[in-house]
């Protein structure tokens, strides 16, 4: 019954009972921690009064670390042991690193399917490095709040997939923190703007950070933020602007090769130049004996393709939300990269209004997270604030032919549970492999593999007789768990898998080893698989059509179609996708007459049925 008492109004805890809760924005380039004091969210600065802490971890040979500014200055001197932008590596495998683009100058290794970084202190995972940053911020907050923290809210990009979210939560667990909620960054920003007070309508949040882009469309009503759609790109951000500018400098200065620390130094210079260009119309750049300057228009041209890509995401988000640009009441700008005047202009043009920028775009996410943490920990029971978020990417299962069957579509409000029934395809099959995937594409190889497990001890039955119920559950943090159960004959088998990364839970690691097989974009393999499914489908269609309407065929026609079937069966397992495609196409062409004849027959049948009805109606009216 305590369940109900909590929501009763007027039970605000006395001040001395207030719990210590903070919001942490764990960012790609920098991180912040905030709390609510006297009803207002404030950033907790470091000893020097700086709000922003670089997301940098410097490892020493003895295993000790320094975090933040002290670590950041080591980046150029000791690049291999100073980890930056680890957020881009969260929940990722070694094979993913190449697709993340340049900017990483580490020695990568693979352990249990997770990417690791070789340092003087040994192998370090992105989860461990993130945990160091979290510990650093939590320690600061504990000091400021004079006691251990009761709970934290950690923000993640809305577009983070399950692996990235799980990795973030694991980092918090490693850091010894009680996570109240993983909160999507755009949603946090909307909360920070306090638009819930008295406002109704649709808000768009444009969040361009160092390494990620998120667009969320929210509908706001009476304190409830309902996320309608979220779209993003986990590999697009201000870091790309730095890279583009660096390439330009290298070209201008005629430099062809750079070592790690040279590259790091150049990127630092470019980042400073980029920031200066937010206010100045032109800045001077000097590097390796070369010096020159760049005008804002030149810089805008360098980053235009990236900004255009982000505007396309805005368009997609509106479409997904079924909202037009005119219906958007406010546009909230988040992330340091939105200081760039060109970005503001392009986003403003798209939404046909001046975006909101009054809260510092670097702080806004942490401030919103602090408000949410304050509420979740129980400090403001009267608040109406409620955040209804969605999953950013569809969740599904592998089915025949390497295809993905979607179970929960993207932009579904969480928490959510959904079950689907599957069956066996072989007689006497006693085990079934369940492969969980996330993504929008149809092929398994194009989606992210989250987990793979086996349901065993299915009682032997004929193919298709088993009823295997697979249940997907996504909690309010956006984290997935999957269970499966066979219940056709009363015998039940049950297993629950929660994908996890970075913690040394041996069973979880075993699952990971099986599952973290990232396939590269392999057009050939996909084609082959698609063609095989196509060939099989064609066989089934032909067979069932012949069974149903064989009477419509002459003997010659029947044997012709049987030949086609034979060929389909023979070619189905060929390694040559083109050969399969050819026979499928020929089968389609040469059976077309049959399809047309069947359609005609169906039409005839329907028409006849109708006329008989009409006839009998007429008969009735004639009193016959």
């Amino acid at each position, binding site marked *: 019954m305590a369940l109900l008492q909590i929501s009763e109004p007027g039970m605000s805890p006395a001040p001395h009972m207030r719990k210590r809760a903070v919001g942490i924005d764990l960012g790609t380039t920098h991180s912040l921690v905030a709390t609510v004091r006297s009803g207002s969210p404030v950033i907790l600065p470091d000893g020097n009064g700086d709000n922003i802490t670089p997301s940098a971890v410097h490892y020493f040979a003895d295993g000790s670390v320094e975090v933040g500014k002290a670590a950041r200055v080591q980046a150029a001197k000791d690049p291999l042991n100073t980890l930056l932008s680890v957020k881009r590596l969260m929940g990722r495998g070694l094979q993913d690193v190449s697709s993340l683009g340049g900017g990483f100058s580490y020695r990568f290794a693979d352990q249990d399917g997770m990417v690791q970084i070789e340092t003087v202190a040994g192998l370090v995972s992105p989860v461990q490095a993130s945990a160091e940053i979290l510990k650093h911020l939590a320690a600061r907050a504990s000091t400021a709040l004079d006691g251990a923290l009761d*709970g934290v809210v950690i923000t993640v990009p809305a577009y983070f997939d399950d692996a990235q979210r799980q990795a973030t939560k694991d980092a918090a667990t490693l850091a010894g923190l009680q996570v*109240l909620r993983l909160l999507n960054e755009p949603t946090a920003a909307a909360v920070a703007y306090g638009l819930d007070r008295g406002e109704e309508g649709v808000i768009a949040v444009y969040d361009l950070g160092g390494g990620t882009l998120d667009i969320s469309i929210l509908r706001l009503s009476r304190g*409830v933020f309902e996320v309608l759609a979220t779209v993003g790109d986990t590999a697009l951000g201000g870091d790309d602007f730095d890279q583009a500018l660096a390439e330009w400098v290298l070209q201008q200065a005629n430099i062809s090769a750079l070592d790690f620390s040279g590259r790091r130094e150049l990127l630092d210079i470019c980042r400073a130049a980029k920031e200066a260009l937010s206010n100045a119309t032109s800045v001077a750049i000097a590097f390796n004996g070369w010096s020159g300057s760049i005008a804002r228009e030149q810089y805008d041209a360098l980053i235009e393709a990236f900004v255009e890509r982000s505007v*396309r995401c805005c368009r*997609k988000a509106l479409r997904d939300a079924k909202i037009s640009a005119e219906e958007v009441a406010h546009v909230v700008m988040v992330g340091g990269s939105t200081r760039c005047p060109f970005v503001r202009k392009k986003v403003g043009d798209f939404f046909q209004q001046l975006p909101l920028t009054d809260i510092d775009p670097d702080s806004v996410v942490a401030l919103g997270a602090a408000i949410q943490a304050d509420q979740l920990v129980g400090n403001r029971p009267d608040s109406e604030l409620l955040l209804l978020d969605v999953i950013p990417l569809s969740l599904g299962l592998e089915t025949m032919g390497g295809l993905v069957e979607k179970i929960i579509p993207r932009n579904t409000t969480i928490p*959510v*549970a959904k079950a689907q029934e599957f069956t066996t395809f072989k007689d006497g099959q006693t085990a079934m492999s369940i492969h969980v995937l996330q993504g929008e594409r149809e092929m398994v190889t194009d989606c992210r593999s989250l987990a793979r497990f086996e349901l065993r001890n299915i009682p032997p039955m004929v193919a298709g007789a088993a009823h295997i119920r697979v249940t997907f559950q996504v909690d*309010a943090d956006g984290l997935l768990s999957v269970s499966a159960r066979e219940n056709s004959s009363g015998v039940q088998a049950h297993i629950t898998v929660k994908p996890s990364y970075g913690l040394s839970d041996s069973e979880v690691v075993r699952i990971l080893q099986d599952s973290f097989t990232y396939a590269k974009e392999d057009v050939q393999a996909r084609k082959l698989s698609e063609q095989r499914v196509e060939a099989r489908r064609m066989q089934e269609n032909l067979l069932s059509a012949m069974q149903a309407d064989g009477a419509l065929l002459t003997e010659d026609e029947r044997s012709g179609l049987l030949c086609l079937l034979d060929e389909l069966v023979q070619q189905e397992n060929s390694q040559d996708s083109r050969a399969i495609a050819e026979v499928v196409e020929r089968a389609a062409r040469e059976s077309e007459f049959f399809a047309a004849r069947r359609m005609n027959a169906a039409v005839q049948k*329907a028409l006849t049925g109708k006329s008989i009805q009409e006839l009998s109606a007429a008969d009735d009216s004639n009193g016959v």
Partner: protein
Amino acid sequence: MATSAEHVIACTLKPAFGEQQDYFSIFGLVPSCVVDLDDLRVRYRQLQQAVHPDRFAHECDRSQRLAQQQAAQVNAAYNTLKSPLLRAQYLMACAGQERAAERTVQDAGFLMTQIELRERLDEAANDLSTLDQLMADVRKKIAQHQQSFAEAWQKQEWLAAQNAIDKLQFATKLSLEIEDRQEHLLDI
């Protein structure tokens, strides 16, 4: 409208929303083909205010799990009732009229229209305004099929109701294909 909050409390006293709990009664509504979406949204938000796990974040794991289940159930009900197709299918299931797996549409006129619409989609190829016009037509069809379903359901003419659902399904699928094509053309 006050019923929503009371309703939730009543439900928490019972074990939880069972899987069998009727989606309409979750929102304090009686089963109907026609749902006022604005009203449904208001009820949905009120329910989530009461059951969402965020309301129990500082409580024990058990409360959290219970809240999670309830919020998921409310979301499932909301998603079903706000979609015309899912709502119609749900109403049929409630009436004990589950769809037979291997039914095919036999209405010649409908098949012809369907073929014609598909041809228009193929012909529209890369022309956005043609696609928009086609979409408008398909939406009209969807509205018509909804109407026929509602009439059949009211009269408990299950065969006619199922036929209307089949058609609604065809048209809905086509509208999704048009959307895909549009998005492809818009490069988003």
